[in-house]
């Protein structure tokens, strides 16, 4: 969460401080993308840990209450389905991150597109956090 806040702060600084200046924006966008990469990875690790713990909880509780293996498998399938949107959002964020990196490498003066994509990237982080919060047990 702290990393996301930092990311948003860096992003806000980027968007508010660079209007009309094209040169300084590229290293700042690079910084945002690198922060974003770390944040996406960290969100992914957290989500995976929660996802794993939730499935183990289903197994443990199922065994303790004498449920059949088929019933436990059915509950685990529901857990997996519930988490699916989180993985899709993380993948989308990684694609966005890759797109920004590609523009930085090939067309770094396309500032409008870089800002648009960076803004989308920040929003995608918020969406991932929201989705994790919704699905976690």
């Amino acid at each position, binding site marked *: 969460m702290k990393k996301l806040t930092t990311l948003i702060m860096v992003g806000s600084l980027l968007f508010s401080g660079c209007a009309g200046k094209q040169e300084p924006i590229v*290293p700042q966008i690079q910084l945002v993308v690198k922060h974003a990469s*770390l944040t996406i990875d960290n969100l992914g690790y957290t989500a995976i840990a929660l996802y*794993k713990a939730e499935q183990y909880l289903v197994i443990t509780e199922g*065994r303790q209450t004498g449920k059949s293996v088929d019933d436990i498998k059915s509950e685990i399938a529901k857990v997996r389905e519930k988490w699916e949107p989180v993985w899709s959002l993380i*993948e989308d964020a990684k694609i966005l991150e890759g797109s920004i990196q590609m523009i930085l490498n090939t067309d770094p003066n396309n500032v409008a597109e870089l800002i648009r994509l960076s803004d989308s990237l920040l929003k995608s982080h918020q969406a991932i956090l929201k989705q994790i919060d919704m699905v976690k047990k």
Partner: protein
Amino acid sequence: MNPEIIRKVVEYARLAAAINPSAIDSLTDALKRWAINNGHPPDKIPSIREAVAKVDLEVDQELDAPL
């Protein structure tokens, strides 16, 4: 080189890059060169889908294991 160590070094390189954006390329390039020169290409950091598949496999094995 132990893939876990490579992952850690890449992680530190990224943290360093957060402070100095130009650091990440030189650090990761140096790491890759070192690993390749020593016959150990850096292990790919798994994508989220690979990580999910790994967890699912582990859980399936746990569920199918005899009590």
